[in-house]
């Protein structure tokens, strides 16, 4: 595969919950500069947002990379959190391990991973308990 033409890198801060979602806003700005259609931008920014929130809630932060190719966009999320015990279960809508204080903010509805899958054309999860989770999502242009 050809190399990504543009890579956007973000460190997602796990300490500061109030800043969660900032990377998604930055990604959207960059995609607009490239003239990508609003529907694609919406898909990428929702997937990115859900991933970002997940890393903050469950993994104490992590790294996010958005690789823009001529025919698709790839979102890579890497964290060193606790890992996902049962991926099949986590992919079900409404299933969540978010703590109560997070739920009281309106998060933890169990729609994170399902939304990431819904809004992307391809999604791979690689998670090892106690080591972390790596997610690669693709949105075709």
């Amino acid at each position: 595969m050809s190399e990504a033409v543009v890579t956007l890198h973000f460190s997602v801060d796990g300490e500061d919950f109030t800043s969660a979602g900032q990377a998604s806003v930055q990604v959207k700005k960059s995609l607009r500069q490239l003239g990508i259609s609003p529907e694609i931008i919406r898909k990428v920014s929702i997937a990115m947002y859900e991933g970002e929130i997940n890393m903050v809630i469950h993994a104490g932060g992590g790294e996010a990379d958005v690789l823009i190719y001529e025919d698709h966009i790839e979102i890579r999320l890497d964290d060193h959190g606790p890992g996902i015990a049962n991926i099949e279960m986590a992919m079900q809508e409404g299933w969540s391990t978010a703590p109560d204080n997070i739920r009281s903010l309106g998060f933890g509805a169990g729609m994170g991973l399902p939304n990431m899958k819904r809004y992307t054309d391809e999604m791979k999860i690689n998670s090892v308990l106690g080591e972390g989770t790596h997610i690669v999502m693709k949105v075709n242009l």
Partner: protein
Amino acid sequence: MNTYEHSVSLDVSACTGCTTCLKHCPTEAIRIREGHAVINPNRCIDCGVCIRNCPHNAKKATYSKLDQVLRKKKWKIALPAPTLYGQFENLDDIDYVLQGLLDIGFDDVVEVSQAAEFVSAYTRNYLKADGIAKPVISSACPVILRLISLRYPTLQGHIMQLLPPMEIAAKMALEKTAKNHPELKREDICICFISPCPAKVSYVRNGFGDYKSEVDEVVSVSDVYFALLNVMRRGDQAPDPLSRSGMIGISWATSGGEASAIFNDKYLAADGIENVNRVLDQLDNGNISSLEFIELNACPGGCVGGAMAVENPFVAKARLQNLRRYLPVSQNFLDDENKEYIPGSYLFESLPTYLPIQRLSSNFAESLRMMSDIQKVRSGLPGIDCGACGAPNCRAFAEDVIRGRADASECVVKRKQQLEKQLGEGTETNHDGS
């Protein structure tokens, strides 16, 4: 695209080329070139932030001169924005202001706050209609309308397609004149909005989408304020009871006034362009749910914070609270047959086309290459966003370089670093030699 007429202009002789406006401009529309500020008309949203912040008064709002307007047509109708009432100290009755407008030479007055009460009533109908994208975003602030059409294409459909109070007041003024003075033709009439807001000047000049404004001239609250001071102090004769505004209409001058009049708790009101941008970003991300209505004002405090007002917006707000204290909640009501209805002439059909100002190139592959090049240039810059190159920050400068609008050698910090490095190498050799 360049046919959009703006209302912010620059007095080149007063501009020192400092970086104040550059730093404050919310759309990065300003660059410093050849020692003075240059505004990119495609990016400018007429928010007035540069006018408010310029330490040299070099940024000015353009509007019609009051004395010229008063000489113009046979029948001149003043449409005062409610912000005007908040400018006067110790004012206890709006009628003094309205009487004053007649005394300085206007032939009739139609209060924008009166029209605003109808807009509030129609908004309540609008929110009940089927097929409306919620939350509905207020159409009253012209800066917000332009900001959305430049930056938030997915939110265009949320804009309330009901005309703002200024336009409804203009239509009311025309109806009133047709009834009371049928002998007057449209060209004999001058509808003059008294505005705290430069963006309203642009709205009147350019229209919105396909809609053409019914307002003929826009004068500033500050000019009218000084003209009124002379006449309002004279005598202690009680003015004619002219005002038809209630609490709701007056409250439109301040942030939250419009939204609270929907009589529903599911609203949000934000003011100040940075706060507005944050709300729109969050809304665009789909993270604001279960709201019915969003009121956004570009100016801090709402319209009282407009660049063409005189008084500090918070003082004006306090005065308006005092003025409206003994007013009825509203003085304008829909008749029974209009209870569930909005007149077609009070709606606008089309939204302006999305103008993708941020787009690097119309070709995607070319855009990608440019973004990659911008990243490369950016990584070689100091990243202190000093503005000395004439761009607001290093990222914008890198973009200017790649777009061919600036030269990479213009970064003085980088040049200084290179110079220091060369000098440093020079002294090191000296040390080695001794």
